[in-house]
């Protein structure tokens, strides 16, 4: 496989990651979100392995396996188990203003391209063109966390944002040093336990996982 072919396949994968990020933004059903998130992780994992192959950086294989294990298998599994245990399978979230959210999302993608333009000029890596997509995924994850009001959705937004960060690390630098990637993965794992406990706490205290109910703490006038 030539490098340019690898770069092209990688661009396709980047496009798919971006597409899933947009999908997450407007998906209403909780299982749908989970599937989209798992797909995004899978694309990320393939892309990481591909870059590792094309660039000959073998530690990226480990990173790819880590992504596969965490983001495609373990986290969706944990979330799925939690959804079943908490019986929130049928909770459908009202997503307001889909067109506006999409437009803001598109604006964020353009902004990401603008922001990363000087970096892409400097880079010599085959993956440089995907850095903008990585930043856009981060920003779309952020947007998802702001616009959605369900605890599970916000967590999926957070994890999608983290996917964007991993993707950024691969496309800008062929991955962070291994010790850092392992540490980040460990942190995500701990975070998974933390939000798992959280879901139970919120559920027992508030009946539902809609975070709109949590609005008691604010400044009094």
């Amino acid at each position: 496989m030539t490098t340019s072919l690898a770069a092209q396949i990688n661009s396709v994968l980047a496009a798919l990651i971006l597409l899933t990020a947009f999908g997450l933004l407007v998906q209403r059903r909780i299982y749908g979100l989970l599937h989209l998130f798992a797909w995004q992780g899978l694309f990320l994992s393939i892309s990481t392995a591909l870059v590792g192959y094309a660039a000959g950086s073998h530690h990226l294989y480990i990173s790819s396996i880590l992504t596969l294990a965490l983001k495609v298998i373990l986290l969706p599994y944990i979330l799925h188990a939690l959804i079943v245990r908490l019986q929130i399978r049928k909770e459908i979230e009202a997503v307001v203003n889909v067109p506006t959210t999409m437009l803001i999302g598109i604006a964020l993608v353009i902004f990401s391209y603008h922001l990363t333009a000087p970096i892409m000029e400097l880079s010599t890596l085959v993956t440089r063109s995907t850095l903008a997509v990585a930043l856009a995924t981060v920003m779309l994850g952020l947007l998802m966390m702001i616009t959605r009001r369900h605890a599970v959705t916000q967590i999926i937004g957070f994890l999608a944002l983290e996917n964007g960060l991993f993707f950024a690390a691969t496309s800008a630098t062929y991955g962070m040093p291994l010790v850092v990637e392992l540490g980040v993965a460990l942190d995500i794992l701990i975070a998974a336990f933390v939000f798992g406990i959280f879901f139970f706490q919120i559920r027992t205290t508030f009946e539902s996982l809609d975070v709109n109910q949590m609005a008691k703490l604010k400044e009094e006038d």
Partner: protein
Amino acid sequence: MTLIILLGISFLSAIALAFAGDRKFAPEINIFGSLATFLAGIALAVQVYMQGPMLAGNNFFFVDAFNVYLAVLTSFVSMTTAIFSRRYMRREREHGRIGHWGMRFYHAMFQLFIFAMLLALLTNNLGILWIAMELATLSTVLLVSLYRTPTAIEAAWKYFILCGVGIAIALFGTVLLYFAAEQVLGEGGEALLWTNLNQVKDKLEPRVLSLSFVFLVVGYGTKVGLVPLHNWLPDAHSEGPTPISAVLSGLLLNIALYALVRCKVLVDGATGTHQAGYIMMGFGLLSILVAAFSLLRQKDIKRMFAYSSIEHMGIATFAFGLGGPIATFGALLHMLVHSLTKSAIFFTVGHASQMHGTQEMDKIRGLIRGNPLVGWGLIFGVIAIVGMPPFGIFTSEFLILTATIKDVPLLTPLLLIGLGVAFAALFRRVQPMIAGEIPPNQQFLKVAHVPVILHMVLVLIIGLYMPNFLAEWFSTAVGLLK
């Protein structure tokens, strides 16, 4: 070796306490672990003081004058907090506010939190620094929601989400930094080591570094509690158990600021301009002003002092941004004395709210008559925190103000307004609480004397006469941060 002991003790204590956290002697293990950590911290400090900066563990750790003083401070405040929390948490347990698992969890996470902060301080690798910061957040999130009340869970969720996002953005900044470093230092783990980066900082690509600094300042700034990224801070401080408010306010904010300043040194070296400094000055000044005016409207005592922390972190951030020897010296001193004073205040506030069974300031009265240590401790703490002589914060604020008048005279009035409003707001609230008759809802409680007195005496000593070694230390650190 000392380093391994220093980090190892808190980690092992965390594991031990995860099993024994609700035993009768658990608070004593907690105190003993923190005391051992503190002694190891002192040993490390002596070593660095005698021999100068050192690298250890295959360049994985780096200790210089800047981080060693923060490490000693961290282990010291965690020790006094452990002493304070012994009676405090026992009482919460007796009142049924937390159960068996809660106590185990509390003790284990307290030690893990200290481990994470020390790791963040001592590591040389900016990636590990990030991981340790995230670990510090994750270990305290569930401590904020320890009481399981609706407001506590809301506060913890806010803390989790906002700091999680903030820290994720800081990781993007770190990735960009690594990208720039790789072009100069080549691929591999070595390119994220701060000491290596510091040597080649003038060769790093300035455009990439200034972009990366924007992400870093937003990311770590969220944890420092800079306005407008501060929303989580008052909630987390007011809803969590008081010992946790004390360490969050006194220590965690410092560590986040430390991370930011380490990155700023690199960015300054690469860009050769004062741009990063201006960004920090802007955030700092905004934090001072917004926090000072928010102080006026508070009804909850812990929430009020949380805003005061935002104000003081704003002052330190502003001073680091200002740069120059006097302002940097002032900022380093400010981090030290603010941390000591604010944790002492939280100790007395914890006692006061336990005595009255509420955190509402309108219901807390007659503290001096009810319990002289709590009353006098609070009033001296407040005198110190608003920057009155002869306490240490007066010295640091005076230095920072002098540097401001010299370098950016136009900002002086704004800074003074912030300090003045905070002064008025705090006194207006605290004065009625300490004076007057004992109200019917007040109970007499045995309190921990040592932590409050120790902290206040230290702040007083630093204000009256700064020990030589401390001054030397700060001067060395100022040289490092140029």
